[in-house]
């Protein structure tokens, strides 16, 4: 296939939405959104509070049901994919870590165990090493700081081996120093694993640091989709 015409392997849309809409009690939280995210692309969803950023991400993970339109993962309508399989392929990191009571290792093993799998020997330690928490395997989650908990949450999502990473304000609950640390970590892991990533953020500077493209939402609608290098000119 010819290069540069949008049809090379790298240009295949891993994730695409068509007229994606969610209306709750007469209010459109997500309104006719059409997105196309290519393999390995990192896209920031930005916009003011209440613009539908988190609602859009929840639809992509199918934590909520669209009232109109749909999502395609690798050109397959996601309603044809079993929800559990879909959520495994499109791993979502919530704003708060919500670690389950118990050890760090048990949290990392949760996703694979839910699918009847056991993580191979050393995978948990390796993941913890990658998120900067070596030796934390047996630590009780109640003893973790906010930044540590969010790193464990990221490792827990990665333990599922997702192709797409959906990040909902992953650093908003952290103090400034932890924010930058977690941000760098996420960027490094996305690069290492060649993950496709959507990151919701209210912080445009963070969007510029982490993403190559920004999709601007207002009142649930996409009003702009631009390279983050042009963010200053974004509305």
């Amino acid at each position: 296939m010819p290069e540069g015409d949008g049809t090379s392997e790298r240009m295949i849309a891993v994730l695409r939405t068509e007229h994606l809409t969610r209306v709750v009690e007469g209010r459109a939280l997500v309104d006719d959104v059409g997105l196309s995210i290519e393999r390995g692309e990192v896209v920031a969803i930005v916009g003011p509070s209440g613009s539908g950023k988190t609602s859009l991400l929840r639809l992509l993970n199918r934590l909520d049901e669209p009232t109109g339109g749909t999502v395609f993962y690798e050109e397959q309508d996601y309603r044809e994919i079993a929800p559990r399989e879909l959520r495994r392929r499109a791993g979502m990191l919530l704003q708060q870590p919500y670690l389950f009571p118990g050890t760090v290792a048990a949290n990392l093993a949760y996703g694979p165990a839910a699918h009847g799998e056991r993580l191979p020997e050393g995978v948990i330690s390796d993941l913890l090493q990658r998120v900067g928490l070596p030796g934390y395997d047996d630590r009780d989650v109640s003893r973790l700081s906010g930044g540590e908990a969010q790193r464990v949450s990221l490792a827990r999502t990665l333990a599922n081996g997702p192709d797409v990473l959906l990040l909902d304000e992953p650093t908003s609950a952290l103090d400034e120093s932890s924010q930058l640390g977690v941000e760098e970590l996420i960027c490094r892991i996305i690069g290492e694993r060649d993950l496709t990533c959507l990151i919701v953020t209210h912080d445009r500077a963070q969007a510029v640091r982490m993403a190559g493209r920004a999709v601007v939402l207002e009142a649930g609608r996409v009003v702009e989709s631009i390279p983050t290098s042009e963010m200053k000119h974004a509305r």
Partner: protein
Amino acid sequence: MLARFFADTLQLGVAQAVVTFALALVVVYVARRQGIHLERESIVALVRGFIQIVAVGSVLVFLFRGPSWVSVFILLLMTLAAAGTAARRARGISGAFVISFYGIAGGAGSVIVLMTWLGAIDPRMASLIPVGSMVIASAMNSNAVALERFRAEMKSRVGFIEAGLALGAAPDRVVAPYVQAAVGAGMIPRIDTLRALGIVWIPGLMAGMILAGSDPVYAAIYQFVVVGMIFAASGLTSVISTLLIRGRAFSPAEQLQLSVQV
């Protein structure tokens, strides 16, 4: 002392009720002196309770003369009433009445049927209805406690539940700790009842049997049988109701439904 003045059973009963009423009024008066004003509620409750229980007694006089299938009909009505009461206590849960009905009918109903078939409950109406009503009432309480606990757990753990779902876990697995907590909450009062049986309290049925001239040892054993049935029915009801509400908490696409989060 009253028995010396009233030879007729009915007259004696009325006299005993009057004395009890007077005693309750003394308590209301003492409470009033302490600034606790419950006069109206207490008097209304006393009068209402007296009328209700006498009405039930009068109806039973008629029913006991009727065919035995009437007891099944009465127990069914009791189950419906219990489901209604439990559903009112579990407000905010959609379909609470239907869930409570299935839970109580499944839990209390199966225990009553099994124990009657085995002969642990006398199938005559005079025995089946009082014992059945005790089992249904306890199942109702356990049902309400379990549903309320499950609702409270779900409401306070939305983030954890969605974190589990987002990892691709099955809803049953995600809410398993909250199902266990709800069933446990429904059963704990019954376990306490079994523990305290005969030590902290001598239940009404046993006291009634002794008063009616039964052998105290047999009365004690039968009371244990009834408390055991109540335990089994409450446990079964809690399990059925909680599993039914769990099923309604998620959509077919395994999304947490708002109706349970309220």
